[in-house]
């Protein structure tokens, strides 16, 4: 599974890369696909990268959503504030 040259071989899962950076990379991937000047194999690789990026971004969204839900639950007047799970939301995933 060779990664594109500008992101050599990173395992995205659990990476510390911010969500927006992931999405920006995904957008760049789409842009490159749109330009249409990639060789077919590179296109497929790009798409694979896009899929990985999207999956990782989705994972981050899921995690964020869980965090938000906990926050919202605690925000609504519950007397005992449950500890915010996962703290910074990154180390948890």
């Amino acid at each position, binding site marked *: 599974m060779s990664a594109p040259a500008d992101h050599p071989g990173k395992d995205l899962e659990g990476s510390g890369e911010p969500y927006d950076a992931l*999405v920006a990379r*995904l957008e760049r991937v*789409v842009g490159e*696909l749109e330009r*249409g000047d990639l060789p077919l194999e590179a296109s497929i690789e790009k*798409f694979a990268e896009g899929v990985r990026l*999207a999956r990782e971004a989705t994972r981050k969204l899921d995690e964020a959503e869980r965090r*938000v839900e906990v926050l919202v639950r605690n925000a609504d007047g519950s007397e005992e504030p449950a500890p915010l799970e996962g703290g910074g939301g990154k180390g948890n995933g």
Partner: protein
Amino acid sequence: MAVRPGETGDLFAQVKPRALSVSELTRALRVAVEPRFKDVWVSGEVANLRRQASGHLYFSLKDEGACVNAVVWGSQARRLAFAPADGQEVLARGFVEIYPPHGKYQLVVNELEPRGAGAQAVLLQRLKEKLLAEGLLDPARKRPLPFLPRRVGVATSPTGAALRDLLRVLHARFPGLPVLVAPCRVQGAGAAATVAGALRSLCRAGVDVVVVTRGGGSQEDLFEFNDERLARAIAACPVPVVSAVGHEIDVTVADLVADVRAATPTHAAQLVAPVKDELRAGLQASRARLLRAASEAVAGRRRELRALKAELSDPKHLLSEQRHRLDDLLRRAEALLRGRLRAERDAQDAVKARLGRREPRARVRELVARSEDATRRLGSWQAATFRREELRLERLKARLAPANVAESLKRGFALALAGGKLLRRSAEAAQGDALRLALAEGWLDVVVTGVDAGSDPLPGRTRPGGAGPESGGGDAVERDSDHD
């Protein structure tokens, strides 16, 4: 003023026959009179009082024997401490003015006050001027009354109606308000000294305010309150002094020096004592406002906080947006890639179709066809060539056949040879010649027995044929000609 000094001086020195003009006379009178009466006090009774719209007061001052016109210009009139009325005895201060156009004189009044007994009024006036000059009447000296005195001092007669009225109203307004009464005489000679003493006693005993009061009475009854020592005692009092002496129109020096002048003892009580119920109500209102404001401080913040909390938008919508965005991006990527694959597929199909059109089978078949055709033509050529050549040879052979002597011999013709020489005419031989006859097979040696040169051995023939006389020989040649 055109009057020359000399002429004026002459006026009183001697009587001259020369008549004065009215103006001269008037001028002379003014010069003579006005400087002398620049500041005079005049007492009298007000009559014919008229108030102009401009504010000027016109009236006459009169007594039993005389009458003089007087005016208070509006600017002064507005400052008068009281409102004069017809029949009122007043003390006026001002100057005499002669007004030439009317030929009248009048008193221009600067100050006007109600007049007591005539001589005393002038003394009183002097006292007022003195106190005024010392600043004791200065409005700036006036001290405010305590809002709620802890103890009210009252200098009055303990048995008078004034004290009764005062206490009644005072305690009606503020029940239980502490009152310390310093008894004193309030009329008659020497009363002023007792009032002053009471004042001092009250100040020593400790009060927040002092009320000096007595009921109404004659001018003489009140005269003690014009006493200078009393006035100075009031001025010296360390706490504010309220004077309520006589009736409202009776203004004494004590009234002037006091911090506040009350018209009546009742009025004094109103000035000195607030209404306790009102205070309580005010306090209650303040406390209510206080509580309301505090509650509002919390409640308003709670509302704000609630609004703010509502505004603290749950980032779920953001997450949802992002999910859409991710989905869109991925879908776009997928669509692009699938489009690319489709395009590649189409391009490939097109190229394959082009390749298919160039499939060499047709060309192979064309070549095969050409090759087959050439092969066929080769066969045709072969057949035609051999047929033609065979025919040609046949024809040649056929044409050769007539020249075949052997055939003629086979048909029965014979050759006649005489001495090795072929005979063609009968005349070439003579009877008895030995001839050799060549037949189809073998020879015959014969001798000529006769010669017939005249008759044709083969009737119908135009060309001499074989030389043999036997027609059978000729037949034989013809008969066999087909068999070669």
